């Protein structure tokens, strides 16, 4: 389990996490990249700029 750096919610990675894998925070939908496995740590994945709507 990792903590979302954006909103501090608990995020559960897949059963067998892989370094570089992207997991999604269920709370704020931030994308987190798995950095290390033992312990499992994650950081915000770089955001792709989306022109959302306008």
């Amino acid at each position: 389990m990792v903590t979302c750096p954006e909103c501090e919610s608990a995020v559960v990675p897949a059963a067998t996490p892989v370094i570089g894998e992207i997991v999604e925070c269920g709370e704020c939908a931030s994308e987190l990249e798995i950095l290390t496995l033992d312990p499992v740590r994650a950081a915000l994945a770089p955001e792709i700029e989306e022109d959302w709507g306008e």
Partner: protein
Amino acid sequence: MLRVAIVGASGYIGGELLRLLHGHPRVTVVAATSDRLAGRRVDGPHPNLRGHTDLCFVGHDAVEDAGADVLLLAAPHRETMGRMAGYLTLAGTVIDLSGDFRLRDPGTYAAYYGVPHTAPHLIPGFTTGLPEWHRAELAAADRISVPGCMATAGILAVRPMAEAGLIEGPVQVDARTGSSGSGASGGPAAAHAERSGALRVFAPSRHRHEAEIAQATGHTVRMTATGVEAVRGVQVVCHAKLAPGASERDVRAAFHAAYADEPFVRVVARRQGLYRLPEPKILTGSNHCDVGFAVFADDGTVVLVGALDNLVKGGAGGAVQCLNVRFGWPERTGLEFPGLHPN
């Protein structure tokens, strides 16, 4: 089975009550009233109920003979207050969906509804029909007044901030509503060719529901209402000043504290995807109210957004939820439909 009668069953809220109660395992509808359509089948004005019921309307007065345990009132505001004393003698529990018993202060009522309240002594007996903030009282309430559709969205969006002391000063509420919010008898303004594609600022300020939000949050509220292209759906976009020191994290925490265990309120404030903040179109038919926020640290403001289906969570669904609370049933009973996407 609990025996329920619906007064004003030919209208849009009445029809939605019929739909929800038809799917409710613990309730039977013993009377559905309409003077205009007395004797006609309820699936005439409510064609979605075809094949589901053979019920027919009775006149409004026939509710007296229905032997109902619960009365659900979906009659127009201003019409309801004068008849309330009578209704209260007819059933042990009365749930009113009109605006007549929502405001605690008759003076405020008069200011917003343009007429004096004719049954002010009955107001204190009513409990606000919003389980998220009045669940305990509702479990024992015999007189329940369900908040307005835009008010429900506004209160659910603003109140967690107010309770947590995270906002200060007045709140500007910009509400948007679909055409069903005016009921089935909309008049010329409701004609499709006129209402279609509208962005009708029918209340540039001082919309009635602002008084309900103010009452529930303790903040001064200014509310604008715009009719938008939709049949169902309400959205409120609310602007407030953050209290000094309040951070995005505080805001998120306050929302979670308020709603983490709520069956029908979801906190939606996402950083990606198409549906980042609450939007009514995926809530059509559902009893959810989605609430969300965006914090602007640069100038210390917060934007709070709420969305719901005015006929469900903002009306009939809210009433059924109160019924479930009142009778100690699981709160989701009869209200399971999650909403549709795409839609």
